[in-house]
């Protein structure tokens, strides 16, 4: 009998869910959104997603890994998540206009500056994909938000559903995805499928998307009440407005995939709920009052900054502690 055994502290068994497993599972949950984008925008979507993801993996590899093996290149999956999310937040017109390199630049900013300048995975205060996107929007506003194209083969320039003065898209169009916008905004359905997968696997907590979308709904109802008064059509109008706010723009993508980023959201249960609500509130305020078509990026980045405060002030009551 062998008499040389491993010793170490308890517990001696661990959950099989390592960082790699979770991150790659998030990529799996993004597949419906990637497929939807490719269906509606064709190869443009594919090029953008490929460029942003490959670039993200490449920059991560440059910083972290020195050997050249496929596994090293793929890393722990967190760079892939960032790359895909950034790609999904870019407009398909980039390809038509010859600005595909913006996808690479965005990933570079996300991985090199937003992530590794702060010390890498786990240490970054802001969501890297959103920082990448915010950087692109601020530096190249024309390419990023000036031109949207409609879906379909014979794509033409058009405005997003949220642009002021835009004709209404039907809710069904918004839900299934046949509208102009960023790659990942198009199909609410695809995002909901991915979100259900993440919730079912326990990778995200309902409190963040729940608080996020809940706050948006409450604010939308108030907005309708204030602008048009409580009349006979109120319920219908309010319901329409809520669904419109949810399904248009990046709201849903942000609520499910970006606000729930582990590193930049609070770790207490209450903190997560308040943080989600905060994201929804800020997003709606930006949409109604700032006249910016894209509020989700700034809303979440703003709340990222508050995350440590939420953690600090929502420490849970410990077991057996008498409520004060």
């Amino acid at each position: 009998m062998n008499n040389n055994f491993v010793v170490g502290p308890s517990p001696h068994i661990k959950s099989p869910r390592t960082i790699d497993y979770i991150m790659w599972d998030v990529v799996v949950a993004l597949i419906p959104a990637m497929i939807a984008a490719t269906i509606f925008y064709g190869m443009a979507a594919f090029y953008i997603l490929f460029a942003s993801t490959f670039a993200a993996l490449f920059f991560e590899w440059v910083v972290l890994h020195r050997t050249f093996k496929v596994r090293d290149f793929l890393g722990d999956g967190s760079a892939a998540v960032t790359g895909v999310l950034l790609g999904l937040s870019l407009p398909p017109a980039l390809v038509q206009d010859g600005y595909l390199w913006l996808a690479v630049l965005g990933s570079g900013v996300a991985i090199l500056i937003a992530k590794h300048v702060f010390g890498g995975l786990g240490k970054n205060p802001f969501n890297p994909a959103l920082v990448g996107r915010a950087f692109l929007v601020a530096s190249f506003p024309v390419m990023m938000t000036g031109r949207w194209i409609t879906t379909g083969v014979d794509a033409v320039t058009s405005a997003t559903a949220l642009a002021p003065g835009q004709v209404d898209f039907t809710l069904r169009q918004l839900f299934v995805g046949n509208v102009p916008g960023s790659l990942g905004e198009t199909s609410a359905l695809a995002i909901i499928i991915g979100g259900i997968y993440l919730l079912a696997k326990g990778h995200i907590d309902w409190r963040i998307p729940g608080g996020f979308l809940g706050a948006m709904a409450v604010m939308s109802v108030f907005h309708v009440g204030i602008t048009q008064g409580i009349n006979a059509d109120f319920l219908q109008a309010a319901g329409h407005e809520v669904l419109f706010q949810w399904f248009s723009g990046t709201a849903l993508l942000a609520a499910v995939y970006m606000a729930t980023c582990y590193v930049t959201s609070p770790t207490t249960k209450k903190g997560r709920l308040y943080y989600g609500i905060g994201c929804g509130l800020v997003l709606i305020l930006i949409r109604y009052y700032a006249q910016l078509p894209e509020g989700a990026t700034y809303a979440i980045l703003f709340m990222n900054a508050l995350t440590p405060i939420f953690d600090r002030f929502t420490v849970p009551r410990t077991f057996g502690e008498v409520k004060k």
Partner: protein
Amino acid sequence: MEKRSFKGGIHPLYNKELSQGKAIEVMGEPKKVTLPLQQHIGAPCQPIVEKGQDVVVGQKIAESDKFVSAPIHSSITGKVVEVTEKHIVIEGEQNSKFEVKNVRDIDSLTPEEIRSIVKEAGLVGMGGAAFPTHVKLSAPEGKKFDTILLNGAECEPYLTIDHRIMIEQPEKIVYGLRALLKATGAQKGYIGIELNKPDAIEALRKASEAYDNIEVATLEVKYPQGGEKQLIKAILDKEVPVGGLPVDVGALVNNVYTAAAIYEAIKEDKPLFERGVTITGKGVVEPKNLLVKVGTTFKEVLEQCGGLKENAAKIISGGPMMGRAVANLDEIVTKGTSGILVLTEDEVELVEEKTCIKCARCVDACPMYLMPNYLAAYSRKSMHDDAQEYHLFNCIECGCCSFVCPSRIPLVHLIRQGKWEINSKRAKK
């Protein structure tokens, strides 16, 4: 069936099927036993036998005049061959059967008598911590027990010995519970069993039918369902106050196996010198539940199970969540040894620790509603005041946080170290 539970906790793979169907077998007599003089938290015992003396099985060989201590009895008939400060070694023939008598019954005993029988028999908690049972039975000044809870949850993965004793000897457990009720004056007794042991639930329901003050409580299958505080929360919906004891909510928790041992002490005058142990894991040739004499080496016990497989890599005394990894097979079975678990090479994960990604899985899993991520970080940096502000000492060291952490941070280990550092600082002052 009703599913009582608590908040938090985890669902690991249970792997109970390895030994679950195996009836408790009596292990062959060891030739030599080594009886440690300290088998539990509390004062160590002093030997009352000398080298060369003949002893019989069940004879008291060491005791202490301290209250928090339980005497030790010889587990075989033979000759004392060694007495040191640490242990007593006895060598004997292959045949030392304890003669079972039917000496007395609880009805003829006063509560004090029951408590002193429990003490004399050297009973300790048999779930792992091995705290002397008679100490638990005396309520501190001004407090009293209303409820006795028996822990039959057996929530640790792999272990099946409590399950076996519940289906094989349910009457003993119910008898032990009645003795505990009488000894403490408590009104009501519960036996908490997880829903994955329907046969045990059935057996104990039947065995307790005749007593209206005893109820079987069915529990959700979840770790650490058998944690003292979690069990009280699940069954009575009461929280033991921070820094307090179960008696603060009128409860007393004992293991089902301890209850069976109480029966033997009272009815048969049999002290605690042998116990059931689950020998299991993918590294054991034939997993079993064995009745083992206290003082037997792991090596001998494992030989009874066909020995170890080639790929055996880690030996654990107890369950995989809270048990202790042992360095070699000279380790001794004590009164608190509930299991011997052998993990194989591919089950022993040697991955490097990564940075915390703040996923909050540890926070969500903690059954004490703590923030293990912060506790571990503060302990690592020796920021003891911050750690205590976050209720470091309310941690029950269940290991749920370490289990779920995707970054493989040894959270409970860091927390334990933090506690240890604070305690040793306090001791110096």
